[in-house]
């Protein structure tokens, strides 16, 4: 069989990511299949077990049409935002895996796009890493390192956002919120509550608390809730426990952001169940 013919043959229930054949089960997204096979697709708003949300766009991948080999769709030669004529850019976390998909993931061009998105996340909020207690444990910061981001590139927005420290054990610092809705979903789907929501649109979008006063103290959030621990940045914090982990033993001193299953390590760490 010629190479060409081989490429046109679809193995049932497999997709190809960067040339590697990956099996999937019905109903799985590209992200699900990739993670199950140990292939890292950068993501911030995705968490196995929670309904995909598709908001951060870090998981952008290119799907080439069938028969277009991965090498032909290498976008090194293309400009940043152009779309492959033969394919399309999609969010891996929300796009179902379909047999025969030829997917580009870990390419310089896609990582460049991801870096730009990460820069935007930084400048839209007030992320002051040097004094932030989440430094070294923050997935956004780790992502920036992973993608080789050296600066914010765009001018800072310096938005004005509220701190809510009314709750006895949990603090909300909206300055650092990247609107990933992980807390919203964790509260609803795991904790069986409905503590958080996003209100407003565009640049005025912000995290709100579903309580009569809008304050965390009046919500039914409890320290043990997953929503209190899931924030990938330093926006939801357990009060009075910052800086307890010394430099050298923080999550990303010991791990790479691309490690599969890292979310379990992080959750154990913030819940203090890792020791």
């Amino acid at each position: 069989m010629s190479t060409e013919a081989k490429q046109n043959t679809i193995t049932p229930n497999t997709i190809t990511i960067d040339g590697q054949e990956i099996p999937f089960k019905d109903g799985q997204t590209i992200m699900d299949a990739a993670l199950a096979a140990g292939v890292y697709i950068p993501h911030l708003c995705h968490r196995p077990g929670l309904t995909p949300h598709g908001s951060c766009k870090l998981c952008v991948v290119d799907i080439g049409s069938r028969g277009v080999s991965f090498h032909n769709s290498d976008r090194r030669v293309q400009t940043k935002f152009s779309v492959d004529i033969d394919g399309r850019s999609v969010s891996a976390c929300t796009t179902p895996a379909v047999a025969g998909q030829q997917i580009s993931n870990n390419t310089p061009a896609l990582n460049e796009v991801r870096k730009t998105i990460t820069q935007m996340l930084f400048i839209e909020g007030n992320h002051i890493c040097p004094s932030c207690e989440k430094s070294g444990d923050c997935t956004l910061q780790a992502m920036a390192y992973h993608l080789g981001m050296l600066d914010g590139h765009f001018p800072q927005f310096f938005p004005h956002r509220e701190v809510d420290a009314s709750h006895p054990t949990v603090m909300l610092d909206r300055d650092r919120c990247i609107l990933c809705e992980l807390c919203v979903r964790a509260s609803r789907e795991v904790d069986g509550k409905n503590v958080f929501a996003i209100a407003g649109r565009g640049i005025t979008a912000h995290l709100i608390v579903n309580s009569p006063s809008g304050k965390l103290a009046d919500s039914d959030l409890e320290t043990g809730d997953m929503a209190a621990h899931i924030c990938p940045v330093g926006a939801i914090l357990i009060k009075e426990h910052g800086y307890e982990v010394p430099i050298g033993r923080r999550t990303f001193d010991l791990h790479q952001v691309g490690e599969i299953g890292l979310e379990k390590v992080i959750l154990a760490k913030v819940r203090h169940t890792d020791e």
Partner: protein
Amino acid sequence: MEQNATSQSNLRRVAIDPISRVEGHGRITLLLDDENHIHEARFHIVEFRGFEKFIQGRPYWEVPFLVQRLCGICPVSHQLAAAKAVDQLVGVERLTPTAEKLRRLLHFGQTLQSHALHFFHLSSPDLLFGFGSDPAQRNIVGVLDKYPELALKGVKLRKYGQQVIAAIAGKRIHGTATVPGGMNKILTIAERDALLVDIKDILAWSSDALALNEQIHTANPEHRDFATIRSNFLSMVGSGGELEIYHGGLRARSASGADIFDQFDYRGYQQIIREEVRPWSYMKFPYLIELGKEQGWYRVGPLARVNNCDFISTPLAEAARKRFREFGQGGFVHDTLAYHWARMIEALHCAESIYELLHDPDITGTDLVADLGEKRREGIGVIEAPRGTLFHHYQIDEEGLITKANLIVSTTGNNQAMNESVRSVANEYLDGHEITEGLLNHLEVAVRAYDPCLSCATHALGKMPLQVELLDADGMLVDRLTKGGNGVIERTV
């Protein structure tokens, strides 16, 4: 000593342009009276503005790491002063022995590296070549060239101090070490042993640096009088009256050595110190309330500490202190350039203390955090930073957010003193209505003795950008000379 005729024009100049702030120029304004004598000198420092506001609304446990960003040379001092205040907020009176010793070790490392930086990078060119010498040679490059061995020791002393910091705080600069009521990391046996490797050399080099400074100061009579002023001194001392840079009571003594107060609990600092605001400066002017605004200014830092203490707990530094004391004929040494000498006595004390702490079994202990007590709404932490007594004062609300912060940074403590020293030098070296290069250089040497923060970090190569202006009795600009960071001097009237 207050200005009069010149207020109008000075009011306008209060809006210090941001460019000079970014570049970190020091700026000196000399005000002449009708007889063309300098009746006031104003040394402008524009740092620390707005930091107290910036902290408001932040959670208290974050503060040590926010405020350490105030400074690139002594961040540890800010972290520790804030941490001491935070201990009070969480109701901790006493740290565990290991935590307290780790904090001390950290602070000794910090002070050693800061003092080493100051001497070898900033002041050794002035001292070794003489401050009237060719500015082209009078810098760290010149020192490297002519005294390579000495320069190398300086670099290594600084590196060692940073190594101590890194072992405890995880990074050489802007690490994390403190938590409310304690520390976040043990010092492992391996880390301790790594620090022990070079400690003997560090002791020897600190002794050499001290000997050199002592020799320079005692052998040059002109150093005695240069920029010298008589002043009160403020510092912390230990419970036995010993030199103490981490925790103790406040002691103030007058120029003649008489007690103004002693073993004063620093949490009541507002009863003894007030800060005066002057329209021309962002930096406040603290004074001892008992003596009033005019007489109550004081000096802080190495000279104040070595003068004020009754003894030093480590033998080599104590022997050096006794010689220092003899030089002052039993009284205080007021020589401004003796700051350098005192600084090296302290550096040696740091090295000796590091040696002692590394041999203390508690230092590798594992009990790091004390039991927290009842929460309090107010905390005041004071520490002797390399440049002098440093005050951090915070109030929090019931949610744990900062509502009010007041910082008296070390350089502020020397604010009036620096102006006085500058005035003394200007009076001696100003000839007529022209600011000469010689005058500018001499002013720089005077300011540098105090090691003000602005000359640190970005200007570590001894090329402090400086602007000197001369105003007549009507507030009109008579002359202005500017030296850029590249050493180029320009007249810009």
